[in-house]
């Protein structure tokens, strides 16, 4: 029969020699291998003290962005919800009234903006769909929760801190631009 790949190897059917049948030497060889592993570097990351670094293109929890003056960028156009393959995003739009110019950048804004983190597949299509650079995925992931309700993230969970009032927190939440 012709072999499909060149990976096949003939089985060695030679009878074992006396020393091989004695087994002792092979045991000692094996023990030397395990002994050498005592001095190998452990790949373990001791989690709470040490954390694995995420790559800069990691797609984690969503962040609703603000502009430089601390105004929300989102205009509730709904393109992210349309783009979302998991249908995790829902929103309700509202019209900006007089005196809210320092809160919202455009005349229309998202009064309610919810992402169900149990549905979300962290594909990042919402990020791509957004014309206003209002949503992007950060470098953290959703922490555990006791109820399903806890995984529906509203605006207070998603909004980035105000760069005017909390510049440090803003920079931390913003992370490294990929």
């Amino acid at each position, binding site marked *: 029969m012709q072999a499909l790949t060149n990976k096949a190897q003939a089985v060695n059917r030679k009878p074992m020699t006396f020393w091989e049948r004695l087994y002792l030497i092979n*045991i000692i060889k094996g023990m030397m291998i*395990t*002994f050498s592993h*005592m001095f190998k570097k452990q790949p373990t990351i001791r989690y709470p003290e040490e954390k694995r670094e995420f790559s800069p293109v990691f797609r984690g929890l969503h962040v609703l962005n603000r502009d430089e003056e601390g105004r929300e960028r989102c205009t509730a156009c709904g393109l992210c919800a349309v783009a979302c393959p998991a249908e995790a995003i829902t929103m309700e739009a509202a019209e900006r009234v007089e005196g809210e110019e320092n809160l919202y950048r455009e005349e229309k804004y998202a009064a309610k903006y919810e992402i169900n983190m149990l549905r979300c597949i962290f594909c990042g299509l919402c990020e791509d769909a957004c014309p206003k650079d209002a949503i992007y995925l950060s470098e953290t992931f959703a922490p555990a929760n006791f109820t399903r309700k806890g995984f529906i993230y509203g605006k207070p969970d998603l909004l980035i801190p105000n760069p005017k009032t909390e510049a440090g927190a803003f920079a931390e939440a913003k992370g490294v631009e990929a």
Partner: protein
Amino acid sequence: MTILALDWALVIEKLIMIAIIVFASLGIALYTTFAERKVAAILQDRPGPSRAGPFGLLQPLADGLKLIMKEEIIPNAANKWLFILGPGLAMTASLMTCAVIPWGSAIDIFGRHVELQIADVNIGILYVFAVVSMGVYGIMIGGWASNNKFSLMSALRAASQAISYELAMGLALIALLMTTGSLSLKTIVEQQVQGSWWNIVYQPLGFLIFFITAMAECNRTPFDLPEAENELNFGYHQEYSSMKLGFYLFAEYINMIMSSAIMASMYFGGYDLPFFNEASVAPNIAAMIGVGTLLIKIVLFIFLFMWIRWTIPRFRYDQLMGLGWKTLIPLALFNMLLTGAVILAKL
């Protein structure tokens, strides 16, 4: 008033010694479980238990506390008396072995000459054999009383394994006893202290056989068929919980310590520190150095046990029996004949 004729100081001395040795072996067994996990981890490139205390040193205490706090469950179908007797017997048998092990030469304390051995009986090694055979009853009774087919099967395996390997162990020992001419462990050790060589030099094959059979007697991998997690769930202690399970697990580790101590005493000079003249320091200090030496030898043997455990896979049952009956026993007989021939030639 005949009772007062007893040497009460001797009784108290022995009682204190028994207490020290029993608690020390329990403590060492506690930390052997920790060492086992740590050695396993390091051999597999893992850090091992490291959360409880510095370097995880409090881990055995946490484990012990957990075992004690767990609910005691006795299955309805189990034979209650035997179910409780099993772990007790296993523990007693493994602790009784330490009675004849010479832990050191002798110290002078409060004007008394104290031998660092609980009982220097002239049939020491025979006593060890008798007690070790008792250990099988603990496993057998536990497996039988659980009324569980896996436990029973595992108990049967343990019993047949112990019986097959005890034979080879005894035969390997006979060759050693032919050279020493004494059954007393103290005498055997003293001969090695005074003589220029340890017994391992005269009995390398005997030691190999003894070591393999000792591993089988302790139910250690590669001879851990009675436990065989993947075929018998958990073996003879499957139905056990809480401290009764703890006793079984501890008994295994104490067995390991005791067989290490016996191997060190019989083949590796016991408390004899090589290239060291005991007469050059005070007798008490020399005795303490001897105790330390024996402990180091025990620790090295325990490490060897663990090292082997985490290297070699388990034997198949027929391989186990084949090795015991078809290889070790003929080899031990051959070793015995050879030793006898050499002794005859020397006469």
